């Protein structure tokens, strides 16, 4: 078995979740790497949709931004920004949304707006972008983000994007058509919503990670599945594809 980094297994585990998906609405950074890896590895027909309006982009290198010329050049079609949101994302036409964030809570709500108070912020983050509507409209949502007590928090400083709100029933009360975050993948493990409480629950540990270690990197009292498994280690093929993807990209690959 090859040596691999925690970022690598996180990205590879995320790409595996795209098996069987027809189309994916992709945010820049970790989600874009995972989605492009899936296309390279096991889902050559996966339709990548970026919020710049590019539908069916087939980038040969990782795009630095969601509006890269590479995306437009390789797309099946490019539509306007109002159209990509109104005609394509909003009706739930795109199977899977892939998101990352600065903070996540136990119900997979996300903060990409601000650390500290809104009016007197410690750190002003970029803001919402497409995330709230991706998380609302896509039938399935995959979240990929590195884990620490600063990112997996008990209480978000700002709720930019709703995952499962305050838990069971919240999405339907809010009129959200999609099923919400079906999986959260960090650099330590994999979390899925409890079918009753909708709290994100640790269901798999990446090789080398421990429940104790994950608890230490989680800001809330973590629920752990009774069927906890170990994430399959990256195969040589997966690692090779991921590393080639990064090597092909002049630009920095992750956020």
């Amino acid at each position, binding site marked *: 078995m090859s040596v691999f980094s925690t970022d690598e297994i996180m990205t590879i585990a995320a790409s595996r979740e795209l098996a069987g998906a027809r189309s994916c609405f992709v945010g*820049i*950074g970790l989600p874009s790497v995972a989605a492009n890896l899936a296309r390279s590895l096991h889902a050559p027909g996966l339709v990548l949709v970026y*919020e*710049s*309006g*590019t539908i069916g982009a087939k980038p040969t290198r990782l*795009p*630095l*931004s*969601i*509006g*890269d*010329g590479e*995306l*437009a*050049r390789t797309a099946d079609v*490019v539509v*306007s*920004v*109002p159209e990509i*949101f*109104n005609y394509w*994302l*909003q009706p739930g036409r795109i199977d899977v949304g892939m998101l990352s964030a600065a903070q996540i809570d136990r119900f997979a709500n996300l903060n990409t*707006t601000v650390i500290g108070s*809104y009016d007197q*912020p*410690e*750190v*002003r*983050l*970029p*803001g*919402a*972008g*497409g*995330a*709230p*509507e991706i998380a*609302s*409209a896509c039938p399935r949502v995959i979240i990929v983000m590195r884990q620490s007590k600063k990112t997996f928090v008990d209480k978000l400083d*700002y*709720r*930019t*994007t*709703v995952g499962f*709100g305050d838990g069971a029933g*919240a999405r339907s009360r*809010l*009129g*959200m*058509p999609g099923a919400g975050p079906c999986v959260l993948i960090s650099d330590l493990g994999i979390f899925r919503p409890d079918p009753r409480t909708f709290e994100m629950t640790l269901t798999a540990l990446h090789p080398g990670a421990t429940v104790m270690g994950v608890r230490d990197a989680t800001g809330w009292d973590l629920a752990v599945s009774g069927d906890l498994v170990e994430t399959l280690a990256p195969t040589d093929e997966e690692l090779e594809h991921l590393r080639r993807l990064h090597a092909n990209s*002049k*630009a*920095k690959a992750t*956020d």
Partner: protein
Amino acid sequence: MAEFLTLQSAVATYVHDGDVVALEGFTHLIPFAAGHEIIRQRRRDLTLVRLTPDLICDQLIGAGCARKLVFSWGGNPGVGSLHRFRDAVEHDWPHALELDEHTHAGLANRFVAGASGLPFAVLRAYAGTDVAAQSSSIASVTCPFTGEVLAAVAALRPDVTVIHAQQADRAGNVRLWGITGVQKESVLAATRSIVTVEEIVDDFHDDRNAVFLPSWTVTAIAHVPGGCYPSYAAGYSERDNDYYEAWDDLSRDRQVFEDWLEHQVYEQARAR
């Protein structure tokens, strides 16, 4: 019909202190040259509008042109923070910056409503988030057929919209292609518009489905080849990704930024 002007005259005539100024172009075709001209002419108290403020708004904010920013994603794409934007929000430098913050879908639909001559647009958005509470341009509306409650966003009608396009013809018609963002909507929603172009051509290539702005929807056109650098114009240039990465360092420090402003922006005015 559109007037052909120098960029200097176009900005002098059509961008005023206190204006609501949309500068559009989604990663592609960002009107940097026009942004620099606005800085050089020392416009003040502007309300800047842009889905992705990008480096262009970072520069305008750092230079003290903006009183308010209407936006939906304020980062350096693929790189990280916009430091001048952060410094204004976090430390009121060079002065405080008011924010009206949306999602991409919400802000795009505010332009759609403006372009459509409607007071608002309807979308399924913002539910359960803190975003709606922060903005007076987000409300809700009930479907008269189903009773479903949806988001409503107020129409946005900039005083002036500034874009960069690939081509204008001699009659002042404008054509752009590739990633077209919300350029059509932002121009049609605005009272006035300034378009900088890569090239002025005798005839457009026969492609009637590209975004086309008839001369009578455009106020002024300025011929500014490379006017979207370090962004790009499909068919004319490539995005300078290194510039975007270098901006991260350059913009982090107030003094380094001010030196950049002095040498890269203001000096060009004195050279004229």
